[in-house]
């Protein structure tokens, strides 16, 4: 297989994604197409964990973190993996954490 072929395979291979949430006994696991954005992952993970953003007196939002850094929801998984190199979490594997942020004064 040529180098070009390998790069093309990298672009199409599914990204094995795992999302942990502190109170949950099971992680959310799904293979996503590399062109999917983190927003898609966030939406599906929140549905799995049965949580939702909401406002009361405060703003409650759920966020995805990778290696303790919040991800950019407009970024594709492929772009993230390319930016962080193949050694980061494995070329086609992402380990994420779902956390809730409460910001005072939502309402």
């Amino acid at each position, binding site marked *: 297989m040529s180098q070009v072929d390998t790069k093309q395979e990298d672009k199409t291979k599914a990204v094995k994604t795992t999302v942990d949430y502190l*109170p949950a006994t099971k992680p959310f696991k799904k293979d996503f197409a590399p062109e999917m954005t983190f927003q898609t992952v966030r939406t599906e993970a929140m549905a799995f964990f049965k949580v939702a953003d909401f406002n009361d007196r405060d703003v409650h939002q759920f966020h995805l973190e990778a290696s303790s850094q919040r991800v950019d929801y407009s970024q594709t998984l492929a772009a993230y993996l390319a930016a962080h190199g193949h050694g980061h979490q494995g070329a086609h594997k992402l380990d994420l954490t779902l956390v809730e942020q409460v910001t005072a004064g939502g309402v």
Partner: protein
Amino acid sequence: VGSNPYPPIDDWCVPSTAVAATLASVVGAGRRGNEAGVFWLGERESTASVRAIISLRGRGVLESPGRWRVTSEVYGVVSHLAREIDLVLLATAHTHGAGVPVALSRTDREDGVRVPGLLAIVIGDAGQATVDEWSWNVYVKEFHTFDAAELARRVTFADGDITLWRANAEGAIPWSGAEDE
């Protein structure tokens, strides 16, 4: 991915050492007039067992006279620790100051972790209250408070090994359990 991430909990087993470590973590802040709190991690089964106490102190942990709050960064740190030691969050426990009702406040109800089976415990009298005086609440579709009979039926205090950790936004390290370390 359709399985339930929150298996139902019928009752809880709480080692006596967990109670002692919880009080050791919060009583110092109470003396200073501040609320403080800890996380209880454990094994979530029909009988959930508390296995680790996370003393929350330092950056990302707000201890103040009327409020205890933990930032998302701290939740992230504890999430990584929980994954490493193969436990999940079972409970949060925090103090109310002397003279403040020993019950979940509106803020506690709104800001607490709201997933089925999560315990939210309020320790009265700035951490001086004995365990039978704590307010025990479980989230179902809203928070439900145990009366004395339900507490006796659903929470067992027993011997058992636990690990102790101190965590904040900078990371998590083993903790001795000593008061106000």
